[in-house]
């Protein structure tokens, strides 16, 4: 009789232990899933942030101010050139001040990047006349990257970097509108890391009328076309703009 009680108690404890272990495993699994989802969200957020021009090194208003923690204008000074110094005669934009809109800033940054390409001068040379430019030195330096292989550009897509954007070879908005599934659009095969200022040129290229597309813009030309045609045009844009090796 006593042996039966001990056996029953033993079995009860074994069962309880098994239940506790199973519960722990379930908790671990749930934690893993939560972690994986958080990592994925973080990755997506990073991509969006990079695309939106997020710069971790952009200065913020110091703690204690009414706007403490908010992003602030780069440079934080008037940007007036110092008289007598090399570069002082060149004023990107009209005054050397940081332009108020993103479009105007992009225009100046591309001018500077192109001039560096043409003249071999440095970012520092131009920053003497407009200090705000210095904050965008990564964007400017990336613009003058030599063309890379498709494999290199695709490999870069998994590691966002200052001065670069993640670009969809087949334009994502139009592809989604035309019914291509999101998993195809976001497939690693369709993603490349490109210099941010080149990315803006690529976007402009897609919208600009072009005699080689029958006087249409590439975007108009591609409407309703197959994935293969879109990809061929996407790769062509990268080659023509000097991002992808011919």
């Amino acid at each position: 009789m006593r042996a039966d009680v001990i056996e029953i108690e033993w079995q009860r404890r074994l069962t309880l232990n098994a239940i506790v272990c199973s519960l722990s495993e379930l908790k671990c699994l749930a934690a893993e899933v939560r972690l994986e989802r958080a990592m994925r969200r973080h990755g997506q957020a990073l991509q969006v942030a990079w695309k939106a021009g997020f710069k971790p090194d952009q200065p913020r208003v110091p703690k204690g101010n009414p706007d403490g923690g908010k992003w602030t204008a780069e440079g934080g000074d008037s940007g007036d050139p110092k008289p007598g110094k090399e570069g002082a005669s060149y004023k990107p934009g009209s005054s050397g001040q940081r332009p108020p809109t993103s479009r105007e800033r992009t225009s100046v940054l591309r001018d500077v990047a192109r001039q560096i390409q043409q003249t071999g001068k440095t970012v520092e040379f131009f920053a003497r006349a407009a200090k705000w430019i210095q904050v965008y030195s990564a964007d400017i330096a990336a613009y003058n990257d030599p063309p890379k292989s498709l494999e290199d550009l695709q490999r870069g897509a998994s590691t966002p970097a200052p001065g670069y954007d993640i670009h969809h070879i087949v334009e994502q908005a139009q592809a989604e509108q035309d019914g291509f599934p999101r998993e195809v659009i976001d497939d690693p095969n369709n993603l490349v890391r490109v210099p941010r200022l080149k990315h803006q040129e690529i976007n402009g290229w897609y919208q600009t009328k072009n005699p080689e597309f029958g006087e249409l813009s590439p975007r108009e030309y591609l409407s309703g076309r197959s994935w293969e045609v879109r990809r061929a045009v996407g790769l062509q844009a990268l080659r023509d703009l000097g991002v992808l090796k011919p």
Partner: protein
Amino acid sequence: MNRISLQSLTVSQLVDRFTALALEQYEAERHGDTARFNRLFDEVVRIKDELAGRAGDQRSALVTLFDHPNPQVRLNAAQRALAVSPVAARQALQRLWDNREFPQAAYAHQTLTALDEGTSRLS
């Protein structure tokens, strides 16, 4: 620019207008104003059509612009005169690409590639 009757203009005036439009396009591109760029593009096509329709196909008058200091003027002239002056136009496009004068170099490279592949719509 307001739309004007192109038939009343001389070839020289048409070339001047072609140049002015390209310079405006250059500024529009610099400032990311694609809508304005495309409106100007339509005007460029109108002038090209007018020159092509003149006796003897006067697109050859655009050859004088192949050495213009502005890359957008050179690009437009080379693309629009390619059919009547293929060798010089091709050289002008090649120079744009070799000098990496972006973004005009991109359009020049596209046409050069299309010419090599026999798919250009401009030849």
